[in-house]
């Protein structure tokens, strides 16, 4: 095997003084033709900057390679040092030799050109095709990435396609040039887990077929297990550990690698569920009965109601004191709408939500996903924490301040935080502030809507620990909304799986995650990456989520349930 790419002592800096603002501080690696290297790290590790340096796109983001060499073996057999190449030479390398796909499929395609035009452009630039030949090539590329109805889809604009479809279009564009190296920068992070599995399967398949080398960048070390040959772990701009996949995963040498493998939540099919708490005998504190939330769809000139989006359609569950009930599902499943209905942020179309009067006037509080958006940037922490109390008619006095300090210290912050503003805290600290705020009125129930999803993986682990501690100390019940099965496994006593606005399976966490019964739950759990599943053969599955728009007057058939075990219910599937 010949070496395709050799990176030696790479340093990359930003700003006016790149030498003093280095983000990548001396990274070296080699990549053989046809092999896959995974670069793993959290935000700020320099993993993306390293990747963007390989095709010098880093220049356009204000970065500068300050030291080191990047040697690429070109298709014609010559070698080129990319750090020394000029822009015209780089333009011939980009696309033709090195293809790239990005994290954000929603913004990575040009909104004003059809996807066909964008794929054709790649064929024109890299293969010199034009006219009908380019169109035909574009159609074939779309077919190859398994987009149904390819000839029609060529005329679509990006906003008319789902995230998963757009990422396939990106891949089709890369295929235009048959590159020998593909850089994939977190290509599945913004996607649902079942869609992620489809994209991973596609990448694995194409890599085999085209004998393409790949640099795969991710924050999820579990995802790497399925696809990489080699692995490089980065932290603070340095490669702390690199080697063969099995060696690194089974016998990590560096503390940080061990931390990523052990402390960070990884999915283990229900073997890591909590063994504490959760008492099924007591009466529920929140009862949700036949909840439906529908948003009207208006059509035509006179806004006649033509139907409704059935976001939540007949959901029942009980939340018991002191337990964590996780609601899992993918985007559009209705899990967040359910949470928002419980808090009264959206109006329930039908159904009953009953919260027992608890320790305070507002027994249910909520923590939101985005710690940056859920704290008013113009208020001090003191004002932020005081808000629930003011709303409840309390006075801001010494006693209230005492409670603020108590809660701040309880969530791991100090008293001097009171006079500071949100932007002076990190994402994890902000989420701690949100938790403290939610506890100000001593609630019985906290609804956590994707509360750790926006955080870096190692911060995630610590916030989860905090949540479990607080649950014990204050006797809290959590309704934990999440798309992340690994996180859910760590915190849930019971799990409810939502799909297309309905709960399809609910029960003890170990049972639902370990022995799923419903076909959707099975598919979902099979798609979750896990360290133990090495070089997995992902199968390409193109199941689409059904439309939630229903005609006026539509009522779903009454759900029938079967008991799959003690405290484990599964919705009976209608055979089509």
């Amino acid at each position, binding site marked *: 095997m010949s070496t395709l790419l050799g990176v030696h002592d790479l340093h990359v800096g930003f700003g006016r003084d790149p030498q003093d603002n280095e983000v990548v501080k001396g990274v070296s690696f080699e990549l053989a033709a046809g092999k896959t290297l995974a670069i793993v790290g959290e935000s700020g590790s320099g993993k993306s900057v390293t990747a963007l340096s390989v095709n010098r796109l880093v220049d356009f983001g204000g970065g500068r390679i300050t030291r080191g060499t990047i040697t690429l073996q070109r298709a014609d057999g010559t070698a080129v040092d990319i750090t020394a190449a000029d822009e015209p030479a780089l333009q011939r390398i980009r696309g033709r030799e090195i293809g790239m796909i990005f994290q954000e499929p929603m913004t990575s395609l040009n909104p004003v050109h059809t996807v066909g035009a964008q794929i054709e452009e790649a064929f024109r630039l890299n293969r010199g095709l034009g006219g009908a030949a380019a169109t035909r090539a574009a159609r074939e590329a779309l077919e190859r990435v398994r987009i149904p109805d390819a000839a029609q889809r060529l005329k679509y604009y990006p906003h008319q396609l789902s995230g998963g479809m757009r990422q396939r279009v990106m891949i089709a564009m890369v295929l235009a040039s048959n590159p020998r190296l593909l850089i994939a920068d977190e290509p599945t992070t913004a996607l649902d887990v079942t869609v992620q599995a489809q994209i991973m399967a596609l990448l694995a398949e194409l890599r085999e077929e085209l004998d393409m080398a790949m640099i795969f960048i991710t924050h999820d070390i579990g995802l790497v297990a399925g696809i990489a040959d080699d692995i490089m772990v980065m932290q603070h701009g340095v490669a702390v550990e690199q080697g063969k996949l099995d060696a690194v995963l089974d016998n990590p040498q560096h503390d940080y690698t061990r931390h990523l493998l052990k402390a960070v939540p990884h999915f283990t099919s229900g073997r890591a569920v909590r063994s504490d708490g959760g008492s099924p005998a007591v009466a529920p504190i929140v009862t949700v009965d036949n909840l439906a939330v529908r948003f009207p769809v208006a059509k035509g000139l006179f806004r006649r109601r033509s139907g409704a989006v059935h976001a939540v359609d007949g959901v029942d569950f009980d939340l018991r004191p002191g337990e964590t009930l996780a609601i899992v599902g993918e985007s559009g499943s209705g899990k967040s709408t359910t949470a928002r209905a419980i808090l009264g942020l959206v109006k329930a179309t039908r159904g009953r939500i009953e919260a027992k009067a608890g320790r305070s006037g507002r027994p249910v509080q*909520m923590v939101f996903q985005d710690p940056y958006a859920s704290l008013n940037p113009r208020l001090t922490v003191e004002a932020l924490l005081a808000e629930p109390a003011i709303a409840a008619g309390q006075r801001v006095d010494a006693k209230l301040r005492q409670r603020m300090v108590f809660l701040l210290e309880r969530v791991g912050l100090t008293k001097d935080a009171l006079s500071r503003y949100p932007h002076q805290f990190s994402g994890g600290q902000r989420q701690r502030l949100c938790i403290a705020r939610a506890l100000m009125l001593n609630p019985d129930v906290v609804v956590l809507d994707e509360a750790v999803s926006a955080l870096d993986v190692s911060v995630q682990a610590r916030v989860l620990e905090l949540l479990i501690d607080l649950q014990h100390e204050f006797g809290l019940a959590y309704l934990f909304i999440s798309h992340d099965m690994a996180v859910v496994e760590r915190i849930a006593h019971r799990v409810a799986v939502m799909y297309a606005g309905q709960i399809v399976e609910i029960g003890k966490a170990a049972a639902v995650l370990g022995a799923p019964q419903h076909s959707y739950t099975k598919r979902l759990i099979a798609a979750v990456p896990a360290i133990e599943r090495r070089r997995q053969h992902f199968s390409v599955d193109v199941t689409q989520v059904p439309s939630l728009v229903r005609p006026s007057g539509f009522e779903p058939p009454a759900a029938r349930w079967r008991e799959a075990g003690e405290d484990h219910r599964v919705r009976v599937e209608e055979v089509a």
Partner: protein
Amino acid sequence: MALLRAVMRHPSGRIGAAIIALFLILALMGAVGLTPHDPLKQFVVDRMKGPSGTYWFGTDLLGRDTFSRLMLGIGESFLIAFASVAIAATAGTLIGLFAAWWGHLWDGILMRIMDVLLAFPAILLALLIVAIQGPGVMTSITAIGIVYTPIFARVARAPALALKAREFVEAARTFGSTQRYILTRHLLLNLIAPLTVTITLALAWSLLTESGLSFLGLGSQPPAPSLGVMLAESKSMMTRSPWLMLFPGLTIMLAILGFNLLGDALRDILDPRTQERRA
């Protein structure tokens, strides 16, 4: 204070602030009578003199000192600008805020009314109001105030709508915070940054409109010195004494430039995107 320091670090902010400060000082001195000459007194023997040690910017057809008149003219222009922008900013912000908050029908009604006002060119709308009220300082203030109200309504409405959907407003609802608390603490407080920029730029537009009105003879009335009037009077004497046109022209331009530069600097400083880049 942090904002002021940031403005002084910004190159165009520094220049803009310096120009405005200079003009404010000149206007204040003019207002308390600290002018080199009496701006209304006619030095009959010294008519149409060029710039000199006695008359720094020369004299006009009636022998009045141009520099002294400019000092008063700046004062009047600034007074009209500040007063009219205060009206426009207050009315427009409240309209935009409530349109965004109430939404639905109210949003439609309020914003369509603003669209109606926007359909008239600024000078024309001002002319119409002058026709109703008769020219004068108060008319100019009302007219310009009304002209720029819809702009503030739009500037306030867009971020107010965005803020309304932000998670901290949703969080406030889950606590049961009052509408007044949410409107003042969560919306208005966060509107200050975009409004500061618009206020500064609106001061520039309002100077432009005011001097245009008085240039057409429909703003401040003579003998009160006004930049637009002075410029209009200079037209017939342009070839003989170009400085009569040059100095008022430069003064208006500099004043507008000052606010434009400051507005640009404030936009750079307060723009969340540049803040993120710096962080």
